[in-house]
């Protein structure tokens, strides 16, 4: 009969804190381990040289100046959405609705390009587009926030459902704009390029970078240094504490979702005017969900988000390149991405908990 005091083989103990260098070390170790692990899997399954595979991944993201810019562009888009989600999630408001907020922002941007594209000078047109897509995104974010603040509805389901509404709305608008019946709008203003982001210093995507980095910095300051940012943190930790401290929880929820939705709306604007120049139900392309991972892994530090977005986009680009170079289909690269994310998420576990093995305590017991 086992003794009732018998210790389990492994115990989990929550760490109170961990020095910064140590946490960085754990994460770097995780990435290295994940690369090694993927290398073993790659070699076992495909008999390819893993070094070649990783070189190919790197080439996919940075192999050419062109690819580097595409990587930066996609990274900025993801970062923009993550920056938008950060205040909502920090407040523990589960905004699963970024996809919808991006889409409505994209719809109004596309509408501007189609209807008033030739009536305004480019700079003014872009400003108008940015503003109204922010408003559209803000409204999309505000609706679930109002219901949450007034009747305490479940924001996860609500924002998720708002995505479907936005998808249907996009689908409808696509049919309004497409008269051919092929259910696609095509590149808007293909020849005139009105409403497209102009190249800055001959760099097509520099404006995207400027807008998103500006938002990143502003959001960092907003969350860390302002009273409103502090209120968000308090509401996120405990609504009761917030009420006790005299913070109007409702007001904070509404205001924060307004901001969150607006930035996601701007992401839609960047996608439509600065990247694809078209609108479809795939315009958000799942980034609204991926960005949640970015925001959480970065613990809402918008500068850390830059690194995480880069990592995710890098993996994605690398994946595509492996498919081209080695004729592996996309599942192979998705697996590598999966392994790497698995290890990174795993490293968070080891940063928060430590394992204590039974034998390590034997000395004390005997």
């Amino acid at each position, binding site marked *: 009969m086992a003794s009732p005091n018998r210790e389990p083989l492994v115990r989990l103990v929550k760490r109170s804190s961990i020095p910064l260098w140590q946490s960085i070390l754990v994460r770097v170790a995780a990435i290295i381990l994940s690369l090694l692990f993927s290398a073993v899997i790659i070699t076992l399954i*495909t008999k390819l040289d893993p070094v070649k595979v990783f070189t190919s991944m790197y080439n996919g993201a940075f192999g050419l100046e062109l690819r580097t810019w595409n990587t930066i562009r996609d990274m900025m888009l993801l970062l923009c959405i993550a920056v938008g989600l950060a205040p909502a999630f920090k407040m523990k408001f589960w905004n699963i609705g970024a996809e919808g907020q991006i889409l409505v922002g994209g719809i109004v941007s596309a509408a501007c390009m189609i209807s008033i594209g030739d009536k305004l000078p480019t700079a003014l047109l872009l400003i108008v587009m940015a503003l109204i897509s922010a408003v559209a995104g803000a409204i999309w974010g505000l609706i679930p926030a109002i219901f949450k603040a007034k009747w305490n509805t479940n924001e996860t389901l609500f924002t998720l459902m708002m995505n479907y509404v936005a998808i249907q709305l996009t689908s409808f608008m696509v049919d309004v704009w497409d008269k051919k019946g092929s259910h*696609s709008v095509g590149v808007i203003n293909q*020849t005139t390029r009105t409403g497209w982001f102009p190249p800055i210093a001959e760099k097509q995507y520099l404006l995207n970078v400027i807008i998103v980095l500006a938002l990143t910095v502003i959001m960092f300051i907003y969350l860390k240094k302002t009273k409103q940012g502090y209120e968000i943190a308090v509401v996120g930790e405990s609504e009761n504490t917030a009420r006790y401290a005299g913070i109007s929880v409702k007001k904070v929820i509404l205001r924060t979702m307004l901001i969150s939705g607006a930035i996601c709306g701007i992401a839609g604007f960047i996608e439509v005017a600065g990247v694809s120049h078209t609108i479809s139900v795939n315009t958000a392309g799942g980034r609204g969900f991926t960005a949640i991972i970015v925001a959480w892994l970065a613990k809402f530090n918008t500068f850390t988000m830059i690194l995480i977005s880069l990592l995710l986009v890098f993996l994605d680009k690398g994946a595509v390149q492996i498919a*081209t170079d080695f004729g592996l*289909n996309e599942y192979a690269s998705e697996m590598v991405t999966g392994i790497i994310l698995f290890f990174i998420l795993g490293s968070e576990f080891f940063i928060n908990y430590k394992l204590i093995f039974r034998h390590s305590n034997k000395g004390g017991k005997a």
Partner: protein
Amino acid sequence: MKKILALLLACAMLLTCGVLFAACTEDAPEENNEVVENNDPAETPEEPEAPALKVGVILIGDENEGYTYAHIDGIKTAAETLGIPAENIIWKYTVPEDQTCYDAAVDLIANGCTYIFSNSYGHQTFMQTAAGEYPAINFISMTGDTARASGLENFSNAFTKVYESRYVSGVVAGMKLAELAAEDKIPAESIDENGNYKIGYVGAHPYAEVVSGYTAFFLGIQSIVPNVVMDVTYTGSWFDITAEGSTAEALMADGCIIIGQHADSTGAPAAVQAAYDNGKTVFSVGYNISMLEVAPDAALTSASNNWSRYYEYALGAALKGERIATNWAAGYEDDAVRITDLGPNVAAGTAEKVAEVVAAIKDGTLHVFDTSKFTVGGETVTSAFATDTNGDFAPDADEAIIDGYYHESYFQSAPSFQLRIDGITETN
């Protein structure tokens, strides 16, 4: 809780690995076509004179999807015939119809490709953007329809006259229908109040390519059995196994006895086979690939393309450094379309009838869209335009009805026939 979660995650991971392993082993023979990124002269010392032709291919799917497989197969066959080494073709798989297509095209150019093909209609708009930016590179948007209007010299469209093989596949279905009628095997629910036999058609999107296709199919059936009506239901997607299956089920529930399709999956034939297995009298006519694998009893045949004919032409022109025709279309005459192997349940005499019809199409005595064979609103059509010039997508130029038949794929390679003829109802 955490342990359970960890276990679940671990299981999921193992499962993924397992699935992947299976997938990879299947693909193994094809995996060694490693592409050299930069044309390293040291590696190809025997290469004669100028830089070798490099071709980029942008595909909506990969070899696991019938439509894309047909293109891959066509390109590989053509390249082999023309002696283009495999490593000079760079493939971009599963490229969605968005900015990714433009990125892929520009990336291919950076890798030295001078001829770039894309195989899906939705790629076209992004290909056109790239074509405008890179006048020295040749862009070919397969199945597209804007090359002529774009005015770009380096931008082309190509399509087979697949309506011919759809007509022939309709003949196969018609033969079966005639046989069933002669044997009195058509259930009452499959006959409407006017004594017409009901046919169903699973369409992707309601535009010319699909309209042209189902009309040809319908006319093929009607050439054998005149008293038929057809319901067309759209899925709103080119590839959606579930929707195509459920649409076929809905059509069968309405009594349709033949299910045709213009969508890329095996969803409809599989659903028809399931109904067949449950004792229903119903047969399927597929698209792109033989459906005998998913519907061994219910599949009669599939209308299909032989893309290698086009790729032989296009890559041949590329090898000579020539521009590619802005619009290319070919049919039975050039062996560019065909129907797949006949299923075991086709009516007796089908093969002979098919040979006869194909011969008639080839020698020009049979025209699919013969205006004496159909009516619109009860009237014979005497005029129909093929081309849209003012951008509203309603054709307003190029009279296509000449010598008593609609000249399909004549002014542009992509189908333009979009009259809604009597006897066919679009249900959505």
